[in-house]
């Protein structure tokens, strides 16, 4: 087993003395991120809702980025991906990222097209 743990997060900005301490540190970080998400979700600041980037509200972009940040720390520190060999890391991480990005792109693109057909086509569905 990999007995040595890498004890620094945020690219060495924060160093912990022991693995247990690192776990609690990551928990605090994840809790803060979740709290930010919930507060934003309840209050929905106007400028984040009104402005959008690539056809999606800024608020939703923030949610997605924060989710990926959480996913990173869960995988890297709770699942100890940080301590695995880079070959294992790449095999496990890049495979889904590549496939899922492709799936999302193709499905959302298609869905937008279907939406346009429903809206502009001669098709009654709101009756």
């Amino acid at each position, binding site marked *: *087993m*990999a*007995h040595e743990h890498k004890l620094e997060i945020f690219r060495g900005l924060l160093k912990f003395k022991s*693995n*247990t301490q690192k*776990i*609690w540190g990551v*928990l605090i970080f*994840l*809790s803060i991120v*979740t*709290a930010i*998400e*919930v507060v934003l*979700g*309840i209050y929905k600041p106007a400028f984040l*809702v009104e402005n959008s980037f690539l056809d999606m509200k800024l608020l*939703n972009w923030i*949610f*997605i980025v*924060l*989710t990926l940040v*959480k*996913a990173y720390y*869960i*995988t890297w*520190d*709770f*699942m*100890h991906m940080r301590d*695995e*060999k880079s*070959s*294992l890391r790449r*095999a*496990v991480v890049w*495979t*889904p990222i590549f*496939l*899922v990005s492709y*799936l*999302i792109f193709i*499905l*959302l693109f*298609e*869905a*937008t097209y*279907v*939406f346009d057909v*429903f*809206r502009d086509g001669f098709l*009654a*569905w*709101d*009756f």
Partner: protein
Amino acid sequence: MDTTVTSESGENVWGGGNRPLGASYGKLMMWFFIVSDALTFSGFLAAYGFSRFKFIETWPIADEVFTHVPFFHGNFPMIYVAFMTFILIMSSVTMVLAVDAGHNMKQNKVILYLFLTIIGGAIFVGSQAWEWATFIKGDFGALETKGGRVLQFVNAETGERAAIADFSKTLPEDRVKHMSSEGVWYQEEGYKTSFSLNEVVEGFKANPGILIRTEKINEQGEKTVLDRKESLNRLKDAVRVVEGANLVRNEYGSRLFADFFFFITGFHGFHVFSGVVFNIIIFFNVILGTYERRGHYEMVEKVGLYWHFVDLVWVFVFTFFYLV
């Protein structure tokens, strides 16, 4: 084969026993399972995204659907789901502490932390069951039109949602149950709503303070409320009363919304449930000293990987189902 290929370290590559990825067989297979399971969940969530983008102007707003907290009355959007997320992250922490204690061969600590993990998982599954029950029961009730659109009601003065029980008239009518002797077709009847369509329609006509809210989302990101005249006009399209949710129709809006809710959270809840079962099995093994005799606690680590994965999936479900 002994003489064919050797790795740089001089080990025999074909004879087995070497670990190019530096992880044991069991751990590696758990990682591969996690990759395939992640793809399954991504498929579900991407399908949810597809359906949502397809009906982007009429999709239900999650904030307005999940507003309940057990033992409290009132409107608390997101609070309970946030609590569930926190419980799951907490149980992930106790799990990683159990793994850490396992590395240091501290049996009693592993027992304690695994126990706490199991409790966390049980609270989460229980919360999810409660969420389902609340979702199925519904709260305001709605009408459904011939085209399958859902018409909800709001109070014109306060702008708040109105439940059909608030304004419906109780009419002296008997509901005739459909019997096989009375028709060519006989279909099993589903649930019976607390008010008939006629009672809701008459009650609506008698209460000028009630307006209809359609599924359509306006530019402010809110559901469109019709004025009284439009509402009365729209009411003619209604064909049935809907209370709560099932796989065919639901009072919250698009039918697909309830289907995806049941499917995605159900599949995730089943994962959590299996995770709890695995944890219990390992928990007893730890108590019996199986891993103490084996000399390492790698099994705790493998189950831990699965448990963290379940947490990871929830992080995504939370974002894409409840937040975005």
